[in-house]
């Protein structure tokens, strides 16, 4: 019964990681430069889940990979922007991250619902464990 709690908590960790990645995407939805100052927009990130406990063997779920979305950046015409492209056919355009806010919100809701479902399961597990302990009371 106790290892069922491990399965559920592995899922809580995985869904929270996913939510953190989504929060990072939304926070950086308009970031046009990297941390070190080079002009390159933020790339959207995503997670991939895989079955199995995070630490080696056992049942559960874990985050197998956090990847960067290779799709095209969004271009917006803004010649006054310090990060606008200086030369080439797209001179005067600013590259913005490939983050789609609508998609991120929908993903966030999905992650939150999955988190809630696992929390509900955890409380059922707790009730069952309590009932088992009452056998000795």
């Amino acid at each position, binding site marked *: *019964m106790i*290892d*069922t709690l491990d*399965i*559920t908590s*592995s*899922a809580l960790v*995985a*869904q929270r990681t*996913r939510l953190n990645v989504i929060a990072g995407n939304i926070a950086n939805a308009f970031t046009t430069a990297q941390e070190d100052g080079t002009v390159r927009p933020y790339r959207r990130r995503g997670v*991939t*889940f*895989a*079955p199995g406990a995070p630490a080696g063997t056992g*049942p*559960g*779920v874990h985050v197998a990979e956090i990847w960067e979305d290779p799709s095209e950046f969004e271009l917006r015409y803004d010649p006054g922007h310090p990060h606008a492209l200086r030369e080439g056919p797209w001179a005067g355009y600013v590259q913005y991250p490939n983050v789609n806010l609508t998609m991120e919100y929908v993903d966030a809701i*999905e*992650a939150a*619902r*999955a988190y809630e*479902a*696992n929390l*509900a*399961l955890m409380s*059922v*597990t707790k*009730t*069952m464990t309590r*009932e*088992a302990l*009452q*056998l000795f009371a």
Partner: protein
Amino acid sequence: MWIERLTGSRLIHALELTAQFAEQRHRVLAENVANIDTPDYHTRRLDATEFEAALRQALQQAGRSGTERLELRGKAQVSTTPDGRLVARPAVEPAPNILFHDGRNALLEELMTDVQENALRYSLATRLLRSRFEALLTAIRGRLR
């Protein structure tokens, strides 16, 4: 020993097996819910009706032969070991789901309903066990309370 005759009765054994089955099924369901967003994950299932059929069969068998031990066998998913423990082998849900293109087939509502139904089964088994032990205590004391 008379105490073994009291505590090793067929009914108590059946309740124990039911609780063990519910516990293992809960574990399988928890795993399914944990992997609700995992691509290519196929839900696993432990069939409650199959367990009930096996238990009914075992009870009838024990009633005919007059033994107090229950043995579940001849079923794909549940069986008992010689020391009376339940071994469950969950099957992978075969039904493909055309709703999700990433190969999942989990339905959250169905899973949560199964979880609640299973928790009730566990609750029933443990409460009946408890009342059975309380009846024994009453008999030992020789008075009510």
